């Protein structure tokens, strides 16, 4: 939990974290190397210098590192681990639901492990969704549409095969769709950052929650427009939040837009660990105040109550977490590095 300077205890759900293995030993090809290199560039480009990691640790960190950075040195009460497989780039997957589940076993109440599927697998994807529900009882999935597979350089949320998967998810009660809009390659003659497929999927699957990571940036205008139309579209602040350090004025403009269009009940904190660690992000976020002119222009404010929603209460609703009960439960099992 995060304790504010005036002593208030804030319940923090880190809605976007990873437990990856991007090390050379797990890389299948140049793409695997370039992928983790790109993540590392994000890390070094937007972290405060005192938070920088060495490359080898960044490529593959331990379960202890994660536990300590999130819960012991970090402010998280709970963390959602997103699975990003990238099977064409990594031998045993960049992320892996089994690996994440093993990690989560050390503090079951603190972790939510989300699955992943690839609609391009057709029938096999449907079988795999059944398998994940039965084996891991997943409540959500991470959808990475920019993933390469064979000759395919990505997929879209409104592909017919994807719709079959969503129908099944809805039926099985897998409700939270975390969409990562990375730069997609196909069709190559179109805008690589287009987010309109979210609009189709969210309209057609009203029973599912669509959490768009990094708020659809760099198409925040399109994302905001979609989020206004669709009541089931949420914004994940991963990647957006670190700008609070390097470009605070710009961050203020972004968050004001998001509060105005998407609203304070539909924004979710996520550190994107291990790209960034949550402690400095939450500290800076809590201390952050919107400049007066930006507040006036949009008629929004980032009050402590709003921050508390973004840091945990909004995600708690999506994952049916009773915050008071969970607070009490977690206080019975305090975090420690020795906990195994």
């Amino acid at each position, binding site marked *: 939990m995060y304790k504010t300077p005036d002593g208030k205890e804030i319940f923090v759900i880190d809605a976007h974290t990873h437990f990856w293995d991007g090390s050379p030993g797990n890389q299948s090809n140049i*793409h695997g190397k*370039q*992928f983790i*290199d*790109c993540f*590392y*560039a*994000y*890390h*070094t*480009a*937007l972290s405060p210098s005192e938070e920088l990691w060495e490359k080898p640790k960044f490529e593959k960190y331990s379960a202890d590192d994660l536990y300590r950075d999130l819960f012991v040195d970090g402010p998280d009460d709970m963390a959602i681990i997103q699975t990003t497989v990238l099977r064409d780039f990594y031998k045993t997957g960049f992320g892996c639901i089994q690996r994440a589940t093993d990690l989560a076993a050390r503090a079951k109440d603190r972790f939510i492990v989300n699955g992943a599927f690839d609609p391009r697998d057709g029938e096999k994807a449907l079988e795999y969704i059944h398998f994940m529900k039965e084996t891991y009882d997943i409540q959500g999935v991470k959808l990475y549409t920019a993933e390469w597979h064979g*000759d395919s*350089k990505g997929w879209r949320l409104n592909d017919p095969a994807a719709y079959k998967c969503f129908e099944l998810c809805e039926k099985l009660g897998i409700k939270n769709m975390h969409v990562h809009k*990375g*730069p997609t*390659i*196909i*069709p*190559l*003659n*179109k*805008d*690589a*950052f287009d987010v309109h497929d979210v609009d189709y999927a969210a309209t057609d699957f009203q029973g599912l929650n669509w959490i768009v990571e990094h708020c659809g*940036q*760099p*198409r*925040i*205008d399109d994302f*905001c427009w979609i989020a206004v139309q669709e009541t089931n579209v949420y914004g994940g602040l991963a990647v957006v939040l670190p*700008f609070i350090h*390097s*470009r605070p004025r*710009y961050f203020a*403009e*972004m968050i004001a*837009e998001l509060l105005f269009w998407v609203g304070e009940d539909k924004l979710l904190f996520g550190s994107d660990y291990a790209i960034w660690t949550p402690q400095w992000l939450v500290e800076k976020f809590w201390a952050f105040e919107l400049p007066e002119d930006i507040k006036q*222009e949009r008629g929004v404010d980032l009050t402590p109550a709003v921050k508390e929603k973004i840091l945990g209460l909004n995600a708690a609703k999506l994952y049916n977490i009773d915050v008071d009960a969970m607070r009490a439960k977690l206080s019975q099992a305090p975090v420690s590095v020795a906990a195994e």
Partner: protein
Amino acid sequence: MREDRETEARFLSEVWARLEEVPDPELDEPITAMGFVELVSLRDGGRVEVDFRLPTYWCSPNFAFLMAEGIHREVSALSWVERVDVRLHDHMFAEQVNEGVNGGRDFHEIFRELSDGTDLAELRAKFEEKAFQRRQECVLLALRASGVPPETIVAMTLDDLGRLVFEAEDARMQLPRYRTLLVARGLARFGTDPAFRTWSGAPLTADGFADHLQRLKSVRLNMEFNGALCRGLKRARYHEHTAGDEEPTLVDFIRGRVPARHAGAAV
């Protein structure tokens, strides 16, 4: 010998000046300002080689293609240039982009399998609109900051635009760039035509001024997001030092970015 060196320096300087006309389509900033161009080499027989690289291996290939094509087009426009070889490095589709652009093949031919059969016209138009909006916002904000009321701003003409002088560096840079697109699109032809319209040609009104600025802002927020990331990622990827750490090279002298303490060493 000295003459050769002078000619070479002049040619290099001309190439760099052309390269400044090539924007990153997503950011509407010159690829030179983004630091994407690594090296310009002059070879015998009017041959020029341009090496460039982007912030990540994953940068969208269509953006990469547009930049490579822009480099080829701009440098080819110099009268003494016989042949241009553009080389994109460290990119997932470097080979295809280079072969295509240097061989004069168009986008559609190179990426047949990955595109849906149409060319890049729609994408180009989209980026051109965004560039226009970003440039316009910069000019409008500068006017507002200097206390000009909306009703005066919306009544300004192309001639008025020509008389403006801004203090702020970004507005000074964007003003002529805005004017270029305004005229190129035919949104203003004569000196008495309005200086500010929307991309689709609607005149701005004092009542709609605040809303219009909000729309332009969201365009800028996107572009700034990418611009900031691209700069940061590129610096991180190539372990670049902050400006001023390195000894200047020939390019720095040519482009006038050598601090005074080094200037005496100029060739």
